[in-house]
């Protein structure tokens, strides 16, 4: 991460992906780079359709290709090029050293097998130990994720468990083989707030114990504030801002990040209307050529429409892809420009 002597667990560089072979179709995920070190948590934040889940599925090798097509970029997991692995090699890593938790715990568990069988299956597949030993370890995992009465739960079917309990089973399964990296896609979104708090603190404690690196995908900035070390803000397939969690919360640079933070109702005393981000996310067919946020950005100028802004590093790891950031420096001049534009329009 810091260019020091230990290499990151996962390093993604310049990753681009599209779902069509036709030329001229914009990349659905465009030039995405990030890295996570051992024991670290990277949060990828963004709204539906920003490409955060697709990126994680691609890294896990879980996207069917075609239609998905990697256009550019590399992803090194523990020094191995993930995109160069054969399906068999990938299958050995997946669920073992690299595992994933999905959002909806009901649809990601097999309803026809008991919890114990499902956890044990993954342990046996990767470690080649016998049935009884695997069951013993499955029980150990259920204890680890603090499921009450684990001995009896081992023989329970998914439908017999509550949502929070199922998500804990998913976590037990994902961590059963002590992965180096855990990708969690909205792991608490389907859960109630008290259960979410339980699951988050569980993930945090387990991570501290096992040193697992984590990529946590979420749309909830509260979850980010709670668990992230680093944050990548994604918009329409691009990382628009990246930094440490304090960079992001104390010094948000990109207008999208600013709008997003203003749009969240606060639990403190209420004050006025929420900030909004006008319009909606562009569909792949109408993806802007320049900055993809420009049509919704209150600061947008001509150059934002003409060309995509390059990544600019501000300090440390904090980087932003915006021509105008920080906005307070470019805004005063731009304000008069905007007023002029308005009066021109009035005359017309």
């Amino acid at each position, binding site marked *: 991460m810091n260019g020091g002597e230990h290499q990151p667990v996962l390093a993604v560089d310049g990753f681009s992906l599209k779902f069509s072979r036709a030329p001229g179709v914009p990349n659905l995920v465009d030039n995405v780079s990030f890295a996570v070190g051992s024991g670290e948590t990277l949060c990828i934040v963004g709204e539906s359709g920003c490409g955060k889940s697709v990126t994680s599925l691609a890294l896990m090798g879980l996207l069917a290709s075609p239609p998905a097509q990697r256009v550019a970029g590399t992803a090194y997991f523990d020094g191995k090029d993930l995109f160069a692995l054969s399906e068999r090699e990938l299958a050995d890593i997946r669920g073992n050293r690299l595992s994933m938790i999905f959002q909806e715990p009901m649809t990601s568990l097999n309803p026809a097998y008991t919890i114990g069988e499902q956890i044990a299956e993954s342990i046996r597949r990767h470690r080649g130990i016998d049935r009884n030993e695997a069951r013993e370890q499955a029980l150990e995992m259920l204890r680890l994720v603090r499921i009450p009465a684990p001995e009896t739960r081992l023989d329970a079917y998914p439908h017999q468990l509550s949502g929070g309990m199922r998500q804990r089973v998913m976590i037990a399964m994902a961590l059963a083989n002590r992965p180096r990296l855990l990708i969690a896609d909205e792991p608490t979104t389907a859960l109630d707030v008290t259960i*979410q708090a339980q699951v988050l603190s569980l993930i945090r404690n387990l991570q501290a114990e096992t040193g697992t690196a984590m990529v946590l995908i979420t749309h909830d900035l509260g979850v980010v504030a709670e668990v992230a070390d680093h944050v990548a803000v994604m918009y329409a397939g691009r990382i628009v801002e990246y930094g440490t969690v304090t960079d992001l*919360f104390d010094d948000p640079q990109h207008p999208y990040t600013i709008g997003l933070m203003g*749009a969240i109702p*606060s639990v*403190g005393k209420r004050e006025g209307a*929420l*900030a909004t981000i006008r319009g909606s996310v562009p569909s792949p067919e109408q993806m802007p050529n320049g900055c993809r946020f420009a049509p919704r950005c209150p600061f947008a100028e001509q150059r934002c429409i003409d060309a995509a802004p390059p990544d600019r590093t501000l300090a440390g790891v904090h980087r932003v892809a915006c021509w105008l950031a920080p906005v*307070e420096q470019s805004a005063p001049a731009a304000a008069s420009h*905007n007023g002029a534009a308005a009066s021109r329009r009035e005359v017309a």
Partner: protein
Amino acid sequence: MSTTNPRTPILEARSLTKHFGGTRQLFTRTPTVYAVNDVSFAVEAGETFAIVGESGCGKSTLGRMLLRLIDSTQGRVFYQGKDITHQQGAPLRRLRREMQIIFQDPFASLNPGMTIGQIVGEPIALHGLARNGAERRERVADLLRTVGLQPAYADRYPHEFSGGQRQRIGIARALAGEPKLIVGDEPVSALDVSVQAQVINLLETLKQDLGLTLIMVAHDLAVIRHMSDRVAVMYLGEIVELADVDALFDTPLHPYTQALLGAIPASSPHERRSRPALSGDLPSPTKPPSGCRFHTRCPHMKPQCVQQRPVSETLPDGRRVACHFWRDIQNAGSGAPLSARVSDKLTERLALYRERQSAQAAATAAAE
């Protein structure tokens, strides 16, 4: 509103109870789900009243009973002082016009085979609010404009719209009957943050402009804090606390409310703290615990809680709490109050962001 006594609440629930199931089958009985149990409260005209709780607490069932979309097992509902618990026929239809609902899922609640014009126009036709087709179309166009959509959308179908737009359509339909009261059943929880903010702002503006009463059924505490005047906290079918929104968030009295607020994620990384998370899951509503229903998860549980159901106590300021020991708990301290620290840079940039956005809006309006 002028015809009724200003003291009369617009909507009142008295000991509302709803049980599902318990019907006899061939050899067995289906288990009875005690969804809502002895719930009473009054909603004043013009306020935003929130019902909050976790999934399975009975808040949606309660919302539906208030609107007479499902019938209660026991208890009564009063609308503007009139008992509507058993109303049928024409009076019920009139009621339907005045009390509307906005559903959670904008993808499931609009008929895919109808155009937007038909969806929004249906209540207008149904309640005879327009003399002819032209007038109805006019009214639909007005409604679409009110919720921030182009009138031209009337000829399109629901699948052509995004989630936020669909929720606006749902709101336009709810407004079509010129209601006095709207129940929002998780109206923004299926939406992305930026779209959610748009819809929240829209609901607030509409409420102001049209003098509506809003009942928000929701689980997102931040949304509730932002929108509501008073809040009822539900746990396993019962109201455990009812208070003004600021009082509730500043000094929650019931241990469940305290746990709920304590579970809200930090609003900034500087406020990370380890907090005592509520242990365990919601007990099954088919077998609610004895005494206080919260006792199985309550950190302050005492023997009395297992045996005796706490009565809802009304304090001098009108807030209500149903806990035997709320006074003792309060003295024990209920954790750090919620704060939302916002960095100076964010504050400055956000102000600039809003300023530029309204300048842009003004410029667009001027151009039109």
